[in-house]
């Protein structure tokens, strides 16, 4: 049993709710019983060590207990969700999936076998090691999705250190490193995972009120939606103690507004990558974007203003791309940072930096200013090439109320004049009806 320690913990917490799914609590005892049944079902279906198995589902009791059982069975788990339906066949092919277990809305499951042999050398290496594995696909918001293969054992090691027991809402899904992190942190500490059927702010706020959620791990994009929906006015969110945010750069204005609204809630920036796992982090304070990252098993260094990380829990490699690690195991995160002593401030992805006549513009900084304008619901700032200045700053806006485009342009420039250096002020201003975030609530900055 590769995760005997986790099973022991779960047995201690027997009657405590482990997950809340469809508003119904399921205690640890129930998950353990389902795991027993899964072991029998997997044996019956001849699913054993080294098989590559996809879970198509959410945080339902059957799906979660299957995930745990597959780890105990030393299989390679490939969690997929509906949000990647369009790429399902491609992902199954890349991961060389042999068994698919899919769950419906009532947590009923069916199993499908695929006649596939594992040929990928990385996967074979893990199988020889006799360890369970995890394949996570990057969202592909920039370019092609990459499949990160992890050895599950080092990935879970850090959860052996006892930490806080909390009721936590799951915002990210099982196919995301953040979702996996939330699930195992919670289970390892006898906490409760509250699953929601949608990421709509009202649905999330209702779940916080109903289940007295203490921790909300989320993204800046969601927090902005929470602000503009004003859903927080309609529910009692007094149980909240901690909001964590990550996966993208937080606009400073959004952070300050959240802090003003929830002065007693700790706001913590998280940092992680599907290739490395989630680092431990500590924000300087709730109102600050300065953060210390690292912790046991992680080393960091800054090279030319870019953050590099070396992690014990790093993936073995990509199944469909060259290794991103250098000879010493360091990975260039491509995140450009400012440094102040032990603290860093993440400015943006290197690929998203806009170069206007040789001067650098970080989309998040411009977005942070634009989000403060009246009638602006959301905005995405991107670079567009232009022969006069190399690139120009383009801002795509979602508005609450329609506005004359030329009037709006004047308003934007007037608003920016005292707040941004001239080269940071958007040259092209577009008003759109389209939503500007992905299914994982991350801002899309495709040009």
């Amino acid at each position, binding site marked *: 049993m590769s995760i005997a320690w986790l099973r022991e913990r779960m047995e201690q917490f027997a009657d405590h709710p482990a997950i809340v799914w469809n508003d119904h609590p399921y205690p640890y005892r129930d998950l353990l019983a389902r795991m027993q049944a899964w072991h029998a079902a997997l044996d019956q279906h001849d699913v054993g060590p080294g098989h590559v198995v996809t879970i198509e589902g959410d945080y339902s009791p059957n799906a979660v207990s299957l995930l745990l059982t597959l780890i105990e069975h030393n299989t390679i788990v490939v969690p997929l969700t509906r949000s990647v339906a369009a790429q399902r066949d491609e992902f199954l092919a890349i991961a060389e999936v042999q068994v698919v277990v899919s769950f419906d809305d009532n947590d009923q499951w069916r199993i499908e076998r695929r006649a596939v042999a594992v040929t990928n050398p990385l996967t074979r290496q893990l199988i020889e090691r006799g360890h369970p594995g995890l394949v996570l696909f990057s969202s592909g918001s920039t370019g092609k999705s990459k499949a990160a293969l992890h050895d599950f054992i080092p990935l879970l090691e850090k959860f052996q250190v006892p930490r806080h027991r909390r009721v936590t809402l799951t915002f990210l899904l099982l196919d995301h490193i953040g979702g996996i992190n939330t699930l195992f942190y919670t289970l390892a500490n006898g906490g409760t995972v509250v699953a929601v059927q949608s990421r709509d702010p009202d649905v999330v706020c209702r779940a916080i009120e109903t289940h007295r959620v203490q921790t909300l791990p989320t993204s800046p994009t969601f927090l902005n939606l929470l602000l503009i929906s004003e859903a927080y006015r309609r529910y009692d969110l007094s149980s909240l103690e901690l909001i964590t945010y990550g996966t993208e750069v937080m606009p400073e204005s959004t952070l300050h507004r959240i802090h003003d609204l929830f002065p007693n809630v700790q706001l913590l920036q998280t940092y992680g990558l599907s290739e490395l796992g989630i680092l431990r982090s500590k924000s300087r304070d709730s109102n600050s974007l300065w953060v210390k990252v690292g912790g046991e098993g992680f080393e960091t260094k800054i090279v030319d203003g870019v953050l590099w990380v070396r992690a014990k829990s790093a993936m073995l490699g990509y199944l469909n791309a060259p290794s991103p690690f250098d000879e010493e195991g360091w990975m260039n995160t491509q995140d450009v940072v400012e440094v102040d002593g032990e603290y860093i401030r993440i400015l943006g992805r290197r690929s998203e930096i806009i170069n206007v006549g040789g001067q650098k513009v970080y989309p998040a900084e411009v977005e942070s200013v634009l989000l403060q304008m009246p009638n602006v619901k959301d905005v995405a700032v991107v670079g567009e090439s232009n*022969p*006069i*200045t190399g690139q120009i700053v383009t801002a795509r806006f979602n508005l609450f109320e329609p506005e004359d485009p030329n009037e709006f342009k004047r308003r934007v420039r007037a608003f920016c004049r005292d707040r941004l250096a*001239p080269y940071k002020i958007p040259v092209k201003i577009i008003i759109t009806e389209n939503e500007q975030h992905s299914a994982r609530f991350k801002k899309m900055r495709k040009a």
Partner: protein
Amino acid sequence: MTSLPVSRTNLANLVITSLRDVLEQSGRPLPATIDESTLLFGKGALLDSLALVTMVVDLEQRLEEEYGLALTLADDRAMSQRNSPFRSVGALVDYLEQLITEEHGRD
């Protein structure tokens, strides 16, 4: 030759409107008169590269919104003209007429 979908006067007005907007919005002084002889970019002209690119993009958007013309004003071709189309209001209007004629001729 068929007549252009936009008259020269309208084009000149469009350029002048965009120029006024960019000057006002960037807090630059407006000259007493703006006409085809007004210098845009270059020695002794009104705009720096940032203001020029803002004006050009604005003009592209106005041409599309008001006349349904999808033109790229700033590209390698514009940048490699012997006489820059961005040197004066009149030169830019000439260049616009040239681009529209080509677009129009293809229909």
